[in-house]
C-alpha cells in the first residue's frame, strides 16, 4: 500500500464513522450547542468521499487540499472552517514532509490559528493537542484518545457556542472533540502510523 493509499483509507474509515455516528454527534451537540454537529460533519465527509473517489492522488498535498476544500465548502458552522483549516494546513506542510506527526501538528496549527482556542476550553483542540503530543513521542494509543475525549466532559466551555452555557456546559462531552476522536481512532486503525 502506498502512503497515499493509507491516508485515503484513513479518510474513508473516518467518513464511515461520522456517517454511522451522525445522530450521536447531533445528540452531543444538542446538549451544549445547537444539535447539528453530526449533520454538518456528515455533509462534509460525504462531499470529501465524492471528491476523492473521482481523483487519483499521487501527492499528499493534492489529497489534503481536496479534503480541506470539501470540508470548508460543505460543513459550514464552526467545525467547517476548523477541520478545513486543519487539512489545508496539512496540505501546505506535506510539501516538506510526510511524517504523520508533523503533518498532524500542522493540522492542529491550522485549527488554533483559525479558532484561537487554547487547550482546556472544551473544544476539539482538547483532543488534537494531546494526540499530537503523543504522536510526536511515538506513543499514540487508543487510550490516549479516549482519555483526551473524556477530559472534555469536566471542562467548562469558553469557546464556541457551548460557552453561552457557562457552568451548565460541564458534564457533557464536546461534540467536536468526539468527531476528532473518531478521526484519530481511524488513524490508528488505517495503519497510517505503521511502517
Amino acid at each position, binding site marked *: 500500500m502506498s502512503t497515499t493509499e493509507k491516508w485515503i483509507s484513513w479518510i474513508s474509515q473516518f467518513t464511515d464513522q461520522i456517517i454511522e455516528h451522525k445522530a450521536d454527534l447531533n445528540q452531543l451537540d444538542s446538549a451544549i450547542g445547537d444539535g447539528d454537529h453530526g449533520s454538518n460533519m456528515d455533509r462534509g465527509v460525504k462531499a470529501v468521499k465524492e471528491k476523492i473517489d473521482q481523483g487519483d492522488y499521487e501527492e499528499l498535498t493534492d489529497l489534503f487540499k481536496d479534503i480541506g476544500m470539501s470540508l470548508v465548502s460543505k460543513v459550514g458552522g464552526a467545525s467547517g472552517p476548523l477541520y*478545513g483549516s486543519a487539512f489545508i494546513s496539512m496540505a501546505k506542510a506535506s510539501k516538506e514532509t510526510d511524517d504523520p506527526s508533523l503533518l498532524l501538528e500542522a493540522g492542529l496549527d491550522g485549527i488554533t490559528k*483559525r479558532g484561537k482556542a487554547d487547550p482546556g476550553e472544551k473544544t476539539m483542540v482538547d483532543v488534537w493537542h494531546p494526540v499530537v503530543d503523543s504522536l510526536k513521542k511515538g506513543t499514540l494509543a487508543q487510550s490516549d484518545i479516549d482519555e483526551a475525549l473524556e477530559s472534555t466532559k469536566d471542562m467548562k466551555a469558553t469557546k464556541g457556542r457551548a*460557552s453561552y452555557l457557562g457552568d451548565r456546559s460541564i458534564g457533557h462531552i464536546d461534540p467536536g472533540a468526539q468527531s476528532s476522536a473518531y478521526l484519530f481512532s481511524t488513524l490508528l486503525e488505517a495503519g497510517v502510523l505503521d511502517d
Partner: protein
Amino acid sequence: MKKIINQPDHVVDEMLDGLAFAYDSIVKRIPDTTVIARHLKADKRVGLVSGGGSGHEPSHAGFVGKGMLSAAVAGQVFTSPTPDQILEGIKAADEGQGVFLIVKNYTGDVMNFDMAKELAELEDIDVDFIVVDDDIAVEDSTFTAGRRGVAGTVFMHKILGAAADSGATLEEIKALSERVNANVYSIGLALSPATNPEVGKPGFELDGDEIEFGIGIHGEPGYSRETLKPSKELAQEFVSKLKKEIDWNPEDRFALLVNGMGATPLMEQFVFTNDLKALLEGEEQLNLAFKKVGDYMTAIDMAGLSLTLLKIEEDSWIDYLNYPVDVIGW
C-alpha cells in the same frame, strides 16, 4: 415534526428558489449558489453582504434590495454559510468600491466570513466587516465567545444600507457600523422551542407554563427559566435588564424593535409593545424616535420575542432608519 416541506435537506434550496420566484421583481438567486442578490447594482456604491444560517427569515434575503443589502448568503438551517458561498455573495455585491460584510457574532459565522474575506482579497476585492454582538443575555467576557448577534443586526442592515446607498465609502461604513454596534442592545425570550427540519425534533424543551429569558436565535439557552408571567411583567424584566446595561437618562433618543421569533402572533407583539410604551415612554421618559414591530430575525417556528434598543447618536441614524427601501421584509 409537522412542517410544510418536502425533504428536510432540500429545505434551504427550495426556500431560496421560492423566494426568488415570489419576489423576482426585487431579487434573483445567483445560480448554483445560496446567494440572493438584488437585480441592479447601484451606481458604484459599496456592496453590503449579510448572511448566516437559514431559519431566520425574513433575515437575511428579505433585506436585499434597493436601499438595504446588495446580497445575502444563506447557510444550512442554523448553520453558517461556507466561505465559497460567501465569496459568491461578495462578488455579486462588488461594484468596485469594496464590499462590507455584516456578520453576527457566532464562532462559525465569524470564521466562515473571515475565510471568505481572505478569498475575496485574493481576487483583489476590498473587504471589511462588522461583527454584531447585541445580545445582552450573554455576559461579555473573555470566558465566552462574546455576545451573540441577534435582532439588532436588522438595524445594522437598515442603517448601513441607507448609508451605502447615499454614497458612504467603505471606511465610513466601517466606522458607522462600529458606532451602531456599540449602541445596540437586545434581549429575547422563548415560550416554545424551534424545530430545525434537518434535526426533526425541538431544540430544547419547555413545560406548558415555562418560558426562558435570554434565549438565542438558534435555541441557545438563556439566563433563567421561569413560569409564564403577564406581558407587563415580561416587559418589565426586559426593560430592567436593558436599563442596567445602557444606563440611560430621560429624553435619551432610541430606536425600538419588537421582534417576533416566528410563531408569535402580531396580536401578542402589539400587546407587549403597549406594555413597553408605559415603561419606556412613561416611566423612563425615553424618546422613542423610531419604532418597528414584527417578525424580522426569527428562529424558524419558535414562539417568543425580543426587544432591541438602539441609542441614537446622530440625527442621520433616524433618517437612515426611515430611508425608503425596496425589499421583501422591512
